[in-house]
């Protein structure tokens, strides 16, 4: 009897405790007006600014649909991904969620958790507005497209500190034809006691790895790694991995405890000369009021000029979304010219659409937009465009093992081959 009372108390408390803490979502059905719960990890900084701008456009385009912010902070997306996994498993999906476009969606597709949006592409005229290369890369193996990209980032960018370079007798404006040329200057920096190349924890090392593979194998060779036409165990890959090994030798020893903003800050503060990071790093500079050309430089990673290593944030249509109409309205805004212009200007990335006027964008963004139109596009490995999650995890594990000294090059190469095959 007492125990029953205790159990009842527990349930009652659970009910009370549950009330106020749930994120808004699911049919609350407030008198006719539709809504859309948008699940992202854009909870702070320039990402939040971008989201806010996008919401502004959304409210204009679809005044009858209420925007519900389901943003989850923490871990640069890992918290959000964990929560999303739980919610999808519990069949309590948000109306739309943010995910990297490309192969990362494969798990959701296989698990029948997202709907194809190919008809929306026709409806919104996106197939013509996006570069054909991009549309190709967004199309899954079954011929359908499963998400609408809101922005494009470039991964193969090297950032430098001109002052540090000048102080060590290197011309900041110098461009390098390939990795070897670059390493000559990196040697000079090392001899002078400056950290030549800053890098952070495992995924940023994979990021570096992909740019090295891109530089040494070329666009076609690199793309071949993911569709099976390039041999992972071949000599070209071995050579690329050797370059990777050499580059890692130029990096800061405390890398495994850092995240990308910290390694970026090393360059900003002048404690390191170069770092390879995607162009979301632009936001760090903007926040600190620094100017392109004077305080920092950005260039394609040596050997990858003319190639745009892309990754895209995109929005999906989950199966069983509580408000599919609201979701569709959101997707329309995401793909629209006004939406993409507002969002990207605030976030620091570039639109996926080719018909957005970028005249009012920042200097770096304008050059990136030009490259996107003109260059060959390849998919990023470290950011979910080229391979699904399981492969990416296996590659990250193999990389961490290698860079921490637990495996040699040959073992590293085999592990990468196994990861890409499996």
């Amino acid at each position, binding site marked *: 009897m007492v125990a029953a009372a205790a159990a009842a108390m527990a349930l009652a*408390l659970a009910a009370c405790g549950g009330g106020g803490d*749930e994120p808004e979502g699911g049919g609350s059905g407030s008198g006719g007006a539709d809504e859309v719960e948008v699940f992202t990890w854009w909870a702070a*900084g320039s990402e939040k600014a971008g989201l806010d701008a996008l919401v502004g456009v959304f409210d204009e385009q679809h005044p009858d649909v209420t925007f519900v912010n389901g943003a989850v902070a923490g871990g640069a997306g890992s918290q959000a991904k964990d929560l999303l996994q739980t919610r999808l498993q519990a069949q309590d999906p948000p109306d739309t969620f943010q995910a990297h476009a490309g192969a990362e969606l494969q798990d959701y597709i296989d698990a029948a958790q997202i709907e194809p949006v190919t008809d929306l592409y026709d409806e919104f005229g996106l197939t013509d507005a996006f570069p054909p290369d991009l549309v190709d890369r967004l199309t899954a193996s079954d011929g359908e497209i499963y998400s609408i990209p809101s922005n494009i980032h470039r991964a193969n960018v090297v950032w430098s500190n001109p002052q540090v370079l000048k102080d060590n007798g290197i011309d900041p404006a110098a461009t390098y034809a390939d990795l070897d040329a670059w390493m000559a200057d990196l040697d000079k920096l090392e001899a002078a006691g400056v950290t030549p190349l800053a890098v952070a924890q495992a995924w940023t090392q994979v990021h570096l790895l992909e740019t090295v593979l891109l530089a040494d194998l070329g666009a076609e060779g690199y793309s071949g790694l993911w569709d099976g036409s390039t041999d992972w165990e071949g000599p070209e890959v071995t050579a690329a991995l050797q370059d990777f090994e050499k580059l890692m030798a130029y990096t800061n020893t405390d890398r495994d405890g850092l995240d990308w903003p910290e390694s970026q800050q090393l360059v900003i503060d002048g404690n390191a000369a170069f770092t390879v990071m995607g162009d979301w790093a632009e936001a760090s500079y903007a926040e600190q009021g620094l100017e392109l050309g004077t305080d920092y430089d950005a260039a394609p990673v040596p050997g990858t000029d003319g190639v745009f290593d892309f990754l895209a944030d995109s929005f999906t249509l989950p199966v069983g979304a509580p408000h599919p109409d609201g979701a569709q309205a959101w997707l329309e805004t995401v793909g629209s010219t006004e939406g993409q212009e507002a969002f990207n200007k605030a976030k620091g990335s570039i639109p996926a659409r080719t018909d957005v006027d970028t005249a009012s964008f920042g200097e770096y963004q304008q050059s990136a937009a030009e490259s996107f139109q003109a260059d060959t596009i390849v998919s990023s490995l470290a950011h979910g465009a080229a391979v699904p999650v399981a492969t990416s995890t296996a590659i990250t594990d193999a990389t961490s093992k290698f860079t921490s000294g637990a495996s040699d090059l040959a073992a590293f190469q085999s592990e990468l081959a196994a990861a890409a095959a499996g």
Partner: protein
Amino acid sequence: MTSVVEAEAGRPVDLGRAAPRERFTVGRTLRYLVLLLFVLVVLVPVYVLLVTSFKGPGDAAPSRAWNLPQVWTTANWETAWSTLAPAIARTVQMVVPAALISAFLGSLNGFVLSRWRFPGADLVFTLILFGMFIPYQAVMIPLNQLVLGLGVPSGVPSLILLHVVYGIPITTLIFRNYYMTVPQELIEAARVDGAGMLRTYAWIVLPISVPSFVVVLIWQFTSAWNDFLFAVFFSSSQNGPVTLALNNLANGALLQDYGVSMAGALFASLPTLLVYVLLGRYFMGGLMSGSVKG
């Protein structure tokens, strides 16, 4: 040979002095020196935490970890508070019911298992006790599915459920050991008066369990407050406790703000530290009882 730690069964602990004071000797000075050295070592992290939490943005960098602040500022404390306050509120909402319910269940169990000798009582106790030692990873995957399946909302409700369930073994242990020391005459007297088990529990045993309750409540409070594993698997930064929020603050932010994370770490630890400072004896009682003895 009687067990040495007998007295500590779920009682507040007094580790008082054992013998009269020694006179001043070289040995004594040496001891003081060594003890002081240890104090310095133990306080090193605290120094860094405190000092960094008062530093401004540029100052709070790893390279300046050992220097005193150039400018003492409380801005970090304010930011940390506003960032962590919702999570702290949720943690309180989670910890209090969990501690109360698991203490109550533990008391019931402890009483039954120590006083009502039915066949197999010891075996049941050992089986329950095993639950205290299992690594939670061994049940995490199906646990996730079970909690989802039961429809318990993630965040505070799930965590309450989990801390109650997995708190049962340790609370049962503490109470059982405590009740073992209750004189049998008390129980007999009640039985002679015709009281059944429930009556005996409610009217005789419960009133004298206060010290043990305090010990258990404090122990459960601390362990639920500091838990991270369940928080990671069963809640998110939107509805989770302060350990999760603190980890996000320290490890997940776009631009690392060390001063704020250090201030945050202090805030997150404040309640348990307060409990420790104010109710140290009861805290120790929990520690001792946590050690299983014969």
